[in-house]
């Protein structure tokens, strides 16, 4: 068998899962990405069989304490003195189902998360023996569980509920008094702990110690009275605490922000991105009836693994703020989109080259910046954006607090030194050369173009989401959309282009900026773009050098995005 090999050969091992032979790699990356022997759990996953588990998490060190992933296996026999492995009568290698020492005949399980596979091993992932083990573990987990699902925020996405239905037994034989532990403990400023619900899988402890590097949580007491705790008087407070809520398989750790806000089964989940900084963590928005309730990280190993920071996670409240700009304003008061667009287009059509300047925002999408740049080219306009910098940390937070600075640079709206051309714009306004200023999503009065200066302009067109000093001076105020209310793409600090989708309907007159800009660009330049975000993106990908080099298309971005060379 001379098979052609195009890739370096991966050493494989063949094991049987539920009677079917499966070839799996001998080693697989562990939580740190280092190769380690493939485990039973991973092998089963490759075979398409999910082994239930609580304490195991692919991005954390293995603990092996929940015992939920127990499976019954059979090992191939060791070679005898003659060097030959024992065989069945038909010559096939003989395997020995694992059994208890001292009690031959009673099957013994191994934990799937930590047991490496051995060639010829047979894994009985759904045998009666395995099922019995799962039942036993689930019964143990439930005897002291308070069963307060009706008030538990985790209900509906709780692994204990799910596995109980899939693998548990309908009734418990427990006839004693339950162990009571502290409830509604304030673990930190953003987290509430219910120790009774906790199943002590230690995921939270391992996460904060190994991934974040803040060894703030531990287990106190002993045996059945064990409980998770932070040190008394030292609240659990780092920028990644809320991830413990995600990884908690039960409702022991709940987010104060989401606590008792909405049952999860009502929430519509929409794939989105965090706009808190240039990292662009992949998220899921949970919303119901046009109200956003929470952000959750979405796994993307190229960007944020399974995590996101607390600051980013709680950075969504502004989307539903009461003072959101909802009315389209023209110089003569409220107006409608058709007339506003007609008037603005009419004004711009008369504008001379060099008399227009654009301040864009690095919080806008690639598509919007691309369209703005088209406008800018038509007028040879000065364009720039506004920098926003903070401190980077060791895990996810980037120093650049704008979600799309890289996009703005690649598209050409701004240079490497973001904000360096703002002074030239100021000069232009002072000298009277610049008569029309288009501002997108920034309060320019905070960045050197003060209200008095804005008064000198003949025309100030502002698009924003929330009111500020600039919006108050606007001749035309175009209410825009937050990223949760439209579609588009961002390019993160490392050059990964990622898309986000629409979770909410914009309120009032607000319209996605790209739709407005698309119309304007068409009216002013005559260029006929595409009236769908897909088409617009593909056109942009064809024109922007870096995007073209990476061969991007809307479809090829997928859910996890694609890299461009910086």
């Amino acid at each position, binding site marked *: 068998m001379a098979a052609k090999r195009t890739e370096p050969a991966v050493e494989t091992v063949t094991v049987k899962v539920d009677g079917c032979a499966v070839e799996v790699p001998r080693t697989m990356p562990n939580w740190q990405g280092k190769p380690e022997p493939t485990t039973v759990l991973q092998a089963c996953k490759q075979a398409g069989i999910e082994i239930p588990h609580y304490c195991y998490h692919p991005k954390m060190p293995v603990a092996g304490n929940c015992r939920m992933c127990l499976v019954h296996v059979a090992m191939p026999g060791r070679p005898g003195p003659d060097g030959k492995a024992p065989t069945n009568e038909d010559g096939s290698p003989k395997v020995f189902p694992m059994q208890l020492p001292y009690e031959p005949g009673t099957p013994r399980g191994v934990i799937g998360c930590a047991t490496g596979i051995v060639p010829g091993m047979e894994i009985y992932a759904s045998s009666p023996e395995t099922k019995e083990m799962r039942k036993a573990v689930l019964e143990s987990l439930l005897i002291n569980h308070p069963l307060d699902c009706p008030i538990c925020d985790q209900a509906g996405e709780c692994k204990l509920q799910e596995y109980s239905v899939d693998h548990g037994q309908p009734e418990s034989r427990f006839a004693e*008094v339950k162990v009571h532990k502290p409830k509604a403990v304030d673990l930190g400023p953003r987290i509430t702990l219910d120790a009774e619900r906790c199943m002590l899988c230690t995921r939270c402890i391992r996460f904060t110690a190994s991934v974040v590097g803040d060894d703030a949580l531990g287990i106190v007491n002993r045996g059945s009275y064990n409980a998770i705790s932070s040190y008394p008087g030292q609240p659990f407070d780092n920028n990644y605490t809320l991830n413990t809520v995600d990884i908690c398989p039960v409702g022991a750790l709940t987010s104060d922000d989401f606590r008792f*806000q909405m049952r999860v089964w009502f929430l519509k989940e929409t794939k989105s991105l965090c706009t808190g900084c240039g990292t662009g963590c992949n998220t899921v928005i949970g919303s119901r009836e046009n109200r956003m309730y929470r952000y959750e990280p979405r796994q993307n190993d190229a960007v944020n693994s399974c995590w996101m920071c607390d600051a980013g996670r709680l950075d969504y409240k502004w989307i539903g703020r009461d003072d959101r700009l909802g009315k389209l304003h023209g110089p003569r008061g409220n107006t409608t989109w058709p007339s506003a667009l007609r008037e603005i287009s009419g004004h711009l059509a008369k504008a001379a080259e060099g008399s227009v300047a654009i301040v864009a925002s690095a919080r806008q999408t690639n598509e919007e910046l691309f369209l703005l740049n088209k406008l800018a080219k038509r007028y040879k306009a000065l364009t720039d954006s506004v920098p926003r910098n903070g401190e980077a940390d060791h895990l996810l937070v980037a120093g650049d607090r704008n979600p799309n600075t890289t996009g703005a640079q690649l598209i050409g709206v701004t240079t490497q030194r973001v904000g360096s051309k703002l002074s030239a714009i100021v000069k232009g306004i002072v000298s009277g050369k610049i008569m029309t200023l288009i501002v997108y999503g920034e309060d320019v009065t905070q960045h050197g173009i003060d209200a008095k200066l804005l008064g000198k302009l003949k025309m100030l067109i502002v698009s924003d989401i929330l009111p500020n000093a600039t919006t108050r001076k606007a001749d035309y105020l175009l209410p825009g959309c937050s990223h949760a209310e439209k579609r588009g793409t961002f390019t993160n600090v490392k050059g990964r282009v990622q898309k986000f989708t629409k979770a909410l309907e914009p309120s009032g007159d607000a319209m996605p900026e790209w739709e407005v800009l698309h119309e304007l660009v068409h009216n002013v330049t005559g260029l006929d773009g595409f009236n769908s975000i897909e088409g617009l993106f593909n056109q942009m990908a064809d024109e922007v050098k870096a995007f073209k080099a990476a061969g991007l298309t809307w479809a090829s971005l997928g859910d996890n995005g694609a890299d461009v060379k910086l």
Partner: protein
Amino acid sequence: MKVKRTELTWWERLYLPTLINGFKVTLRHFFSWKRSEVYGDKQKEFTAKTTMQYPEEKWDVPTGYRGAPYLVKDVDEKTKCVSCQLCEFICPPKAIRITPPGDSGVVDREGAEKMPEEFEINMLRCIYCGFCQEVCPEEAIFLLEDYAINGETREELIYNKGKLLALGGADKRAYNHHVQCDVDEGIKKWETKTREAGEQPAFH
């Protein structure tokens, strides 16, 4: 598929025979000596009359009757509902609307963690299916005996938490259910829990 309707004869189209048949039934009942079982005790003293003077007279609602859904209180006159929103989820006509309490929990008793901030049932929408009662893990909502729900405006018929609790009251049916099931401790769930926790031996 097309179903062919049978043509009515002119005699049938006259509708008079049907009308007369209807009156015959009415008259038969009017002159009947047999009392209706539905009205039961209410008519003990009458011999022939089967018509009831509603609304001055009210009938005995039979057990198992599904009237309007109300929130019931526990034996301590405290809210039982914990705002789990399962009834809201299950309600086929979406007549129920619950506003969760948020982080504060909005509780009216020690030991409880969560109660609804607002609980509304749109009685115009309610179809009295009883799913809410069936799904309620806390036995906090019951279809009680009210059948004549009326009001002058639509808004008036959206019952809020206060009204639902007042109408439900400390309901006998909910109480009886516990007693029948021999779980009389259950009606004092929170008390039992607090007591057990107090009696638990400390570790060490």
